[in-house]
């Protein structure tokens, strides 16, 4: 079989796998289904490079190149299936404009140099900045696409060696509210359940989560279950009609931000109808209230600290009286009947319910609160921590959980615990072999504030790895101008030129994904290892090794003593010390190498599928639930009110802008736009308009439309009655297109608890251009 025949077989296999996801049990003639011959192809396992689902792939290698992809049938995540991005993922390695040589800016122009010279320059600039302006004038901004070793050495370098907490990652923009939601409700981060919940649940409620496009492989598992089990229902609760809405059994649209009121109204109904699991609540929950009118983080150096006050069930019931379904119909745009329907799904003692959410709830100026409120629903009815009963926050990046949340590459975090806690600092100092005084006890700058500090001049040096903030930061014009100011030094490590490399003083070419060894951690606490399968092009180097090289040049060689050949297993061994024990134990390196991932807590050679229930979780005391993240072993039900968004429609700006993704492109498109079939499918950004709004303004499909916010303006082609349909007065724009920077319009307001910005609602004008 020649290469062309082989590719044709691969294309057919992909389509058959996709068909099987839509029609479980579908049969093709035997000769067509015969396995792809191995021939000269060598198949190796790896998690997918793209989203947080963490599909297992088999990468086909031939003549030193990655030439094919198929789903790994041994992976419990995707069971052999991939989405359109996964099937084409290896093509992202080979675009023509791959960065292969370091570049440094001389007299305003980027010129090629050697890796040694570039790394010398990065180290010397970092030292010079620290000596002139202090340790907190240098910063590092990483990513949920960092491998676990990348994030671990970044944390050790910044917090243990240099001694600054100026370490952040782009997961602040996507998952921070999920983290604070988990911490405030359960005292421990990350979902208690796993993807196997999908095979047990009877009802799926999707809270502002377009799973059909953003998590297509998981969504296909939902559809598969619905085909096989007649009682399965999918409810789409969203602010716009999407492909998920049309595939669901029920689509309920609500006004943005009012999910807070809807969740409270569901709780009101559950209590009012006597659907509370009294025994569960009395044994395993306590009630709290926090501060209200907490602001939006729009002021410079905004500071907020929540305080939990204990309340009782009677006070909580009193609080919910404002959320009688009939009383919030106008506010939410959802009928009392629909709210009662939702409550009945959760309240029915005979159904198992899994709630899914992602950016709709997390990119929200009350992101922590809405996470708390969905947990409240599950806690009131005792539907949690058992198969099929799961409040499940999905992630968007391949290692937002593994690297940013577990390694803790955020200003307040350490690989175990937080910088504010002396015991956690002591543990880090002992493992890192640094004086405890090196580790600063106060968090410094979260992401938005770090870019504000760069603009103000308090931060002078920033090293950005594996992320593209000059596309993704809200209120982008301010932060681009800030980064370009005199006496700022920006280092960018990446695989392709982007608007972020445009602002760089040094560009370091990175080894991508399977061009180096590493691990990712997905949404269901699964750590997945991948070997280096191919050589990196030119002088490209892994982000881990770039940091080690710079650290060594700055005099920290004793903290990073590993040889190149052994550095990944050695890093894993050291990092695992932070998580020893039954609550967060990590699988040994050899286990990760041998199988498609393992879920922490990994105890006695076994993954833990469901946490906080003694039947499944060896860390639990007693015979049933034990929410051991909180000192009293109880989960917290929070009284959190509805509060409006910082910008709402008004006479001058009568529309609301929502931003997000499309299935073909991943995040800022720096990889997927270089995969021809994906780029051709959706080559440019567009603005989705409601058909009635479009008609009223005389706008037809493809017409140029101007969007104007208080921060910027943009022109885009109109999309009417195509992929998605916003309600009247709303528009949607995907953010993958670096030629159409929609974040020049968005607002840098954030949740005061999680510090995660809200990309889902800001006020704009819409004009026919």
């Amino acid at each position, binding site marked *: 079989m020649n290469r062309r025949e082989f590719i044709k077989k691969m*294309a057919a296999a992909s389509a058959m796998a*996709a068909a099987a996801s*839509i029609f479980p049990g579908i049969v093709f003639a035997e000769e067509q289904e015969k396995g792809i011959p191995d021939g000269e192809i060598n198949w190796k396992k790896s998690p997918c490079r793209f989203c947080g689902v963490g599909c297992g792939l088999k990468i086909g290698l031939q003549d030193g190149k990655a030439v094919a992809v198929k789903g790994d049938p041994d992976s419990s995540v995707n069971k052999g299936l991939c989405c359109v991005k996964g099937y*084409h993922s290896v093509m992202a390695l080979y675009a023509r404009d791959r960065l292969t040589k370091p570049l440094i800016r001389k007299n305003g122009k980027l010129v090629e140099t050697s890796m040694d010279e570039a790394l010398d320059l990065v180290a010397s600039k970092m030292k010079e900045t620290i000596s002139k302006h202090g340790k907190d004038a240098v910063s590092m901004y990483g990513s949920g696409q960092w491998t676990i070793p990348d994030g671990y050495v970044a944390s050790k370098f910044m917090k243990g060696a240099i001694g600054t907490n100026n370490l952040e990652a782009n997961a602040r923009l996507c998952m921070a509210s999920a983290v604070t939601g988990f911490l405030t409700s359960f005292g421990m981060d990350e979902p208690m359940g796993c993807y196997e919940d999908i095979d047990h649940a009877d009802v799926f409620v999707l809270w502002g989560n377009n799973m059909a496009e953003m998590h297509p492989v998981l969504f296909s598992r939902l559809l598969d279950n619905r085909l096989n089990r007649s009682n399965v229902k999918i409810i789409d609760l969203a602010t716009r009609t999407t492909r998920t809405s049309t595939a669901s059994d029920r689509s309920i649209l609500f006004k943005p931000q009012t999910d807070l009121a809807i969740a409270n109204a569901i709780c009101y109904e559950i209590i009012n109808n006597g659907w509370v699991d009294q025994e569960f609540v009395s044994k395993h929950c306590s009630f709290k209230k926090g501060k209200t009118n907490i602001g939006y983080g729009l002021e410079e150096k905004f500071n907020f600290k929540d305080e939990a006050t204990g309340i009782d069930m009677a006070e909580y019931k009193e609080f919910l009286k404002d959320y009688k379904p009939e009383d919030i119909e106008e506010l939410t745009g959802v009928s009392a009947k629909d709210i009662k329907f939702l409550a009945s799904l959760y309240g029915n003692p005979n159904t198992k319910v899994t709630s899914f959410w992602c950016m709709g709830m997390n990119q929200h100026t009350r992101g922590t609160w809405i996470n708390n409120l969905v947990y409240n629903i599950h806690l009131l009815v005792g539907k949690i921590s058992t198969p099929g009963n799961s409040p499940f926050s999905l992630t968007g990046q391949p290692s937002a959980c593994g690297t940013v949340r577990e390694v803790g590459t955020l200003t307040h975090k350490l690989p175990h615990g937080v910088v504010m806690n002396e015991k956690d600092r002591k543990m880090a100092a002992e493992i890192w072999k640094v004086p405890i005084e090196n580790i600063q006890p106060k968090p410094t700058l979260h992401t938005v504030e770090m870019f504000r500090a760069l603009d103000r001049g308090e931060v002078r040096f920033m090293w950005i790895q594996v992320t593209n903030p000059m596309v993704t930061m809200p209120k982008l014009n301010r932060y681009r101008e800030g980064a370009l100011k005199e006496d700022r030094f920006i280092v960018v490590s990446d695989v392709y030129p982007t608007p972020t490399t445009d602002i760089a003083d040094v560009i370091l070419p990175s080894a991508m994904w399977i061009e180096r060894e590493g691990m990712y951690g997905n949404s269901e606490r699964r750590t997945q290892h991948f070997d280096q399968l191919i050589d990196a092009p030119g002088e490209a180097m892994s982000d881990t090794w770039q940091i080690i090289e710079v650290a060594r040049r700055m005099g920290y060689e004793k903290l990073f003593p590993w040889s190149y050949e052994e550095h990944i297993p050695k890093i894993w061994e050291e990092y695992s010390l932070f998580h020893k024990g039954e609550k967060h134990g990590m699988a040994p390196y050899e286990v990760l190498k041998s199988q498609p991932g393992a879920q922490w807590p990994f105890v006695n050679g076994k993954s833990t599928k469901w946490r906080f229930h003694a039947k499944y979780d060896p860390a639990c005391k007693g015979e049933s639930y034990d929410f051991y993240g909180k000192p009293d072993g109880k989960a917290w039900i929070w009284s959190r009110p509805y509060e409006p968004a910082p910008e709402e429609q008004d006479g001058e700006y009568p529309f609301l802008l929502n931003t997000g993704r499309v299935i073909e492109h991943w995040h800022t498109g720096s990889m997927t736009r270089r995969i021809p079939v994906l780029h051709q499918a959706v080559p440019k950004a567009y603005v989705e308009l409601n058909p009635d709004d479009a008609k009223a303004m005389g706008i037809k499909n493809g017409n140029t439309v101007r969007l104007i916010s208080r921060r910027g303006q943009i022109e885009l082609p109109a999309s009417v009655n195509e992929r998605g349909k916003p309600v009247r007065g709303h528009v949607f724009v995907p953010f993958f297109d670096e030629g159409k920077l929609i974040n020049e319009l968005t607002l840098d307001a954030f949740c005061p608890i999680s510090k995660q910005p809200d990309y889902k609602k800001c006020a704009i004008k819409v004009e026919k251009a």
Partner: protein
Amino acid sequence: MPIKSYLVFPHAGEKSKLTEKLSELKWCEVMPAENKELLVLVTDTTDEADEENCLKKINALTELEHYTLVSGFE
């Protein structure tokens, strides 16, 4: 050299006819499912013009309800 695969959905009762017509097209290889109203189609064209021509011919088939791209290699 685009090679692409699609899921192809025929109008009710038209699967055999659609399979036959697609098989006659120069660039197309068809794999009908045995137990569902669905075909897998792989197109193998030499350049973009060929591909466009091929899609035009596919779109003209009256037995075709709709089709969806699964994977593609340039």
